[in-house]
């Protein structure tokens, strides 16, 4: 079962509209909350008049900082599993406005229609103060970020080594450039929403849009001083996350607050505009200087990044370390700094830091290769790293990046490329071919799972993880089916419920490795338990067998040397008095095994663009991504993840950016018509290759997550293709027509 391209097990629910998302649990007697957002960026609320709203029939309450119920006092109580160092934002905390779009009132009414209208009647006076939101104006104030637990998985740069400045000055070939990208917002198709069902004795059943039900539960219990048994969070389907659901968002807080105060069930859904009122990918400025020796080997690497953060938290991401992992240069200086601005804290967004840093370094490498007169692919072979100097020169647990280069180039037809810029045309349009490298972490963290052989002889496995479209339901079903030798239709995997065994937030491309390992150890434990019971059955044909003598197939335990000697799993349940047989298990990363290795997934992207110089338009006509990500559990869903990442790469390179009017600190394009993401017509021929990669160090399954690595190489590959087509190095993203004309 593992490794087969089976169709998503949640497919039927998704194509029939039966899959229920957070705002779709229509619990009885539901009320509706609508959020009023601030229209200034910084200052004080001097007056809020809610009387007109409250006078409307059907309006139950308007919550503001003046009348909100008391919640926890200490900052610590508002921290979640993905909190950066600092003081988390508290909705309706006081009269201070810290960012534009901040929630400042929640109107709750019997119907959505009345709540939405009433929200327009809340009158607010502000005493505004000047705000600073423009990173480019404040680069000289950048500072080292505070470090915290978050840096465990998002390491800050290593200390410099060698003398990069001297090496740069003395080398025969060099380049230097500045790379800038603006802010981006996740914008999953489903807006953030929470439905709180207010139950007996104030018990809360919370349907939340989140990438971690347990994270939402933790946050609610701490902020509202509740016990875990008073709060159950359920999140079976998530309409896209991309990182936005890694932290509990403010609609969760507001919905719980209102439900408890009113003792009613409450739903709070954000509007699409309000999807710009919490985390984003931070605008980042990067300076790179590279130098090479005459033979094309790297002589010096300097990569500096400066990113924005909020005034209340030091959000960081790993931007420059990738450069060190990919290029093992003796003279390297990597640095990362932040600047606090009047905005909400940035938030991990698909391949956070990776897509930022790798875009810059892979464009820079392309430029250096051109300056050295070497084919960009050959240049990368020449400077291929065999160890990771950012992690004390550890070897890679596996790194089949060479195979990605070779197979990707072959499929794409790279050898037919003529290297001179502007040398390839198709009629009037310029053609450009570019390539770049991608890299992403292959982490594993602890998780738990439960496996139950039910009274009907079916296997039910669960873990409180998420499936944000990644295919978790499907691959966990496959793993469980394989281990207990059962047909897929007799295996059900459930997730997204805090009543299930603990799992971490779904992020960092670690779910397949993390929850997959938990499912594996749990199913293996259940298998042993079943075998013990089978052996004890009266007249058991397996009575004298050891566990190593048997295997599980077709819902039977069978003897290896004679598979016709078997005990049906159903018979074990019957023998157990008709009672289900269950086992829970915990998987922990094998630190002893992992600690000596640097662990990453790799990819190479090859891209063709068509550029119409008259209009400054760029179209990605075809692209090939070759990916080395260990064992692929399901090539069908994995391919979709890589293709999705490639589409994000097209978006990042050519389309999406949240544009702010820095005079007001306010976004100018906070809607899906003006915040451009690819539509169907923007996406042409995308191809994916999974190269063979065996890794018995990363985790017991040998799997590396594929949710992010497909995106990382694409923006640089596209920018490099644009250079090849036009001869213009466009260092800033997105490459829209104003930058190209």
């Amino acid at each position: 079962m593992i490794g087969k391209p089976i169709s998503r097990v949640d497919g039927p629910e998704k194509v029939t509209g039966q899959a229920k998302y957070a705002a779709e649990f229509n619990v009885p007697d539901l009320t509706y909350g609508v959020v009023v957002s601030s229209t200034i960026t910084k200052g004080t609320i001097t007056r809020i008049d809610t009387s007109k709203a409250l006078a409307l029939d059907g309006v139950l309450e308007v919550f503001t900082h003046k009348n909100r119920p008391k919640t926890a006092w200490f900052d610590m109580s508002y921290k979640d599993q993905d909190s950066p160092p600092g003081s988390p934002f508290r909705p309706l905390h006081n009269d201070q406005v810290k960012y534009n779009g901040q929630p400042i009132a929640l109107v709750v009414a019997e119907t959505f229609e009345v709540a939405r209208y009433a929200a327009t009647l809340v009158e607010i006076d502000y005493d505004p103060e000047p705000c600073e939101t423009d990173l480019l104006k404040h680069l000289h104030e950048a500072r080292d970020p505070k470090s915290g637990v978050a840096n465990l998985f998002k390491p800050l740069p290593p200390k410099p080594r060698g003398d990069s400045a001297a090496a740069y000055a003395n080398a025969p070939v060099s380049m230097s450039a500045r790379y800038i990208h603006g802010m981006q917002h996740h914008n999953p198709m489903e807006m953030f929403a929470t439905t709180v069902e207010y139950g007996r004795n104030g018990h809360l059943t919370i349907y939340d849009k989140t990438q971690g039900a347990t994270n939402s539960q933790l946050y609610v219990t701490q902020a509202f001083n509740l016990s875990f048994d008073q709060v159950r969070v359920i999140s079976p389907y998530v309409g896209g996350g991309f990182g936005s659901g890694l932290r509990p968002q403010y609609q969760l807080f507001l919905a719980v607050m209102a439900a408890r105060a009113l003792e009613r069930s409450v739903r709070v859904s954000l509007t699409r505009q309000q999807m710009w009122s919490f985390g984003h990918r931070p605008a980042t400025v990067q300076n790179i200087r590279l130098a090479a020796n005459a033979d094309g080997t790297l002589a010096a690497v300097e990569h500096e990044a400066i990113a924005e953060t909020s005034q209340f938290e030091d959000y960081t991401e790993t931007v420059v370390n990738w450069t060190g992992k990919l290029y093992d240069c003796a003279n390297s200086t990597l640095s990362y700094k932040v600047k606090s601005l009047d905005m909400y804290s940035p938030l991990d967004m698909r391949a956070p830091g990776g897509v930022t840093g790798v875009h810059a370094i892979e464009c820079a490498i392309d430029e250096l290769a051109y300056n050295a007169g070497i084919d960009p692919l050959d240049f990368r072979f020449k400077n291929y790293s065999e160890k990771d100097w950012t992690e004390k020169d550890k070897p890679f647990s596996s790194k089949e990046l060479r195979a990605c280069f070779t197979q990707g180039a072959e499929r794409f037809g790279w050898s037919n490329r003529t290297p001179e810029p502007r040398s390839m045309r198709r009629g009037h349009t310029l053609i450009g071919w570019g390539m770049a490298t991608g890299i992403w972490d292959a982490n594993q963290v602890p998780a738990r799972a439960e496996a139950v052989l039910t009274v009907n002889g079916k296997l039910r496995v669960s873990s409180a993880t998420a499936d944000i479209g990644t295919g978790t339901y499907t691959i966990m079903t496959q793993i469980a089916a394989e281990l207990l030798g059962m047909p897929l239709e007799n295996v059900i995997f459930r997730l997204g419920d805090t009543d299930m065994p603990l799992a971490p937030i779904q992020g960092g491309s670690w779910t397949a490795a993390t929850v997959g390992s938990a499912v594996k150890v749990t199913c293996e434990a259940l298998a042993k338990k079943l075998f013990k019971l089978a052996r004890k059955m009266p007249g058991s044909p397996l009575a004298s067998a050891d566990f190593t003598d048997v295997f599980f197939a077709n819902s039977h335990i069978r003897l290896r040397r004679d598979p016709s000697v078997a005990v049906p799993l159903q018979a074990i349940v019957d023998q157990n008095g008709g009672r289900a047989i269950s086992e829970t298990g915990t998987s922990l990363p094998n630190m002893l095994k992992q600690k000596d290795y640097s662990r990453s997934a790799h990819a190479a992207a090859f891209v063709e663009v068509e550029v119409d110089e008259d209009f400054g338009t760029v179209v990605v006509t075809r692209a090939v991504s070759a990916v080395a990500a260990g064992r692929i559990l399901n090539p069908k869903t994995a391919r979709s993840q890589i293709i999705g990442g490639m589409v994000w790469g097209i978006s990042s390179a050519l389309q999406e950016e949240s544009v702010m009017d820095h005079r007001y600190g306010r976004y100018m394009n906070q809607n899906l018509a003006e915040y451009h993401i690819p539509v169907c017509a923007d996406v042409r021929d995308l191809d994916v290759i999974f190269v063979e990669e065996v890794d018995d160090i990363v985790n017991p399954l040998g799997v590396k997550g594929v949710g992010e690595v497909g995106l990382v190489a694409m923006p640089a590959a596209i920018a490099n293709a644009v250079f090849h087509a036009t001869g213009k190095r466009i260092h800033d993203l997105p490459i829209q027509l104003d930058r190209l004309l």
Partner: protein
Amino acid sequence: MLTETLPVANAPDALPATRPIELTINGKKRQFRLAPWTTLLDALREYANLTGTKKGCDHGQCGACTVLIDGKRVNACLTLAVMHEDHTITTIEGLADSATGQFHPLQQAFIDHDAFQCGYCTPGQICSAVGMLNEGKVENKADQIRELMSGNLCRCGAYPHIVDAIQEVMNKDR
């Protein structure tokens, strides 16, 4: 001092009353009491409990709420429920064969081609594809399908597989 101006000038003291309306949804006549400014989308999701139709922007910019009104694809967020008493509304819940439960060919093709990931835009994509085929303008060419399906955003980036799924259904129909 900065005062927020009310977006609705001369706001009325009382809201217009709700009124009874009857809608024909997925072959069934259903009665509701709705405020006259209730969108068809909110009527479906909040009053008819048909949450298969999704809200992705509420502004006609994403296509997640696409339903079929008399066979034509329409953004349910851009039209009011009260305007459709004389029409036949089909949502994702009504696409499968009601007698046999057999999926619409597009539903099956979307599963077979993995034409979705998170699934949130999927009902809108499928309804839009049904509407596009009803329009009869599209030959079975990928670039045409891409163009005519560009009113439905998919943030997961499932577009290539969506096009494959639609092409397969068109091939079978020949």
